[in-house]
């Protein structure tokens, strides 16, 4: 038991590495602050293309969605980060993961928004258009808000997935939370920094997980 506490819940070690962990946390927060908005924006764009009435736009988009959904994000990151330099181009790690996450998030958010738009009855469009609203106004004020409401649990849950996804940046040495924790672990020969990082993820994401469970049971 002592050994377990010594290895996993060593507060002395945690206190010592805290500045490193904090720096990592800030990096993770910044990553999320950038990735979540552009992921959602990319998802909305993808949805607009995937629901377009032009086949030439619709089918390639759906194909791309499925492609990036079947592509493990880590493979995408490594591909961009380790592959491109062989062409003689230097890709900063941050750019590599941003591109990879953007493609991944756009595909997943796009698919969720698409399902949401599909769940809005056609009569809603007719009602709005019959009062003289343009297609754009109808989307903005009538169908899209309903779509978002219908898939809110999925949107939240994908946002959590995106936050969890930022840990992959550690593989290409972006000093985010998990990377800092792992570095601290190798410096202290002790796993408490990893537990500390895990605790931070739990602290932030657990409430969201609870909210999703609530929402899902209410909508059902």
């Amino acid at each position: 038991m002592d050994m377990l506490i010594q290895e996993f819940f060593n507060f002395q070690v945690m206190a010592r590495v805290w500045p490193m962990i904090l720096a990592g946390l800030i990096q993770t927060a910044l990553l999320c602050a950038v990735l979540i908005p552009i992921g959602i924006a990319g998802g909305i764009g993808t949805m607009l293309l995937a629901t377009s009435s032009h086949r030439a736009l619709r089918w390639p988009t759906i194909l791309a969605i499925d492609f990036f959904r079947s592509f493990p994000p880590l493979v995408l990151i490594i591909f961009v980060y380790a592959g491109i330099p062989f062409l003689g181009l230097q890709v900063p790690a941050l750019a590599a993961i941003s591109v990879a996450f953007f493609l991944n998030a756009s595909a997943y958010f796009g698919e969720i928004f698409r399902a949401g738009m599909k769940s809005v009855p056609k009569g809603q469009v007719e009602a709005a258009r019959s009062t003289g609203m343009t297609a754009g106004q109808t989307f903005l004020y009538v169908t899209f808000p309903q779509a978002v409401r219908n898939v809110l649990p999925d949107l939240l849950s994908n946002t959590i997935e995106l936050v969890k996804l930022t840990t992959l940046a550690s593989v290409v040495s972006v000093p985010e939370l998990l990377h800092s924790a792992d570095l601290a672990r190798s410096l202290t020969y002790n796993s408490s920094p990893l537990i500390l990082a895990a605790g931070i993820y739990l602290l932030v994401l657990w409430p969201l997980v609870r909210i999703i469970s609530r929402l899902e049971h209410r909508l059902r």
Partner: protein
Amino acid sequence: METWNRFVFTFFNADIAWRYWPTIVEGLWVTIAAGLLVVVTGVTCGMLLASLRTLGIRALNIPIILFVDIFRALPPLAIILVIFFGLPNVGIVLPSLVVLWTSLGAVLAAFSEEVFWAGITSVPPGQWMASRSTGMTFGQTLFHVILPQAVKLAIPPLTNRTISITKNLALGSAIGVNEILGQANSALSMSSNATPLTMGAFLYVLVFAPLILASRMLERRYQWGGH
């Protein structure tokens, strides 16, 4: 033209592909085997936990909900690193493949418990009453009446979850599991060429694209019955 040739040489190099093909296919078998292990244990444990929850015993429900919430909230890579680097220091040494399997298995168990439980709670209570009124036991009712209906509701969201969690097998490369990405990565450093990565990516798509297509077909049949 020069750039194009260089691009082809870097990412689609036939010589390199020929040389490293066997290595990467080895990784494919590891990925498939690990994937099957994760899916079977994860989904089975998830259904077991959801079934236990129907008993309505507080002392049982609280740890189940705790487990589910924690493994839904934690990043899989964090779980993998804690188990892989932490356990040896307390005297438990597990092969990296086992670490990958248990970590992802636990994550999938958590997510599938949630999906199955959602399915179970959306079966109308009248089904329980009807079944018990014919003299069936609690267990019989659960297995013959409730679970079949719950599973049907659970299939589309479960397929999506299973795919996205199984894709994390690539994380194994971070702890030295020689699955596709791990193999491709070492081939990349040996050959100083990105073609092995292309092959790895291709194999991943080969494995997962059919699953994604299948999930689309399922969804069409069940009309996004996920939630």
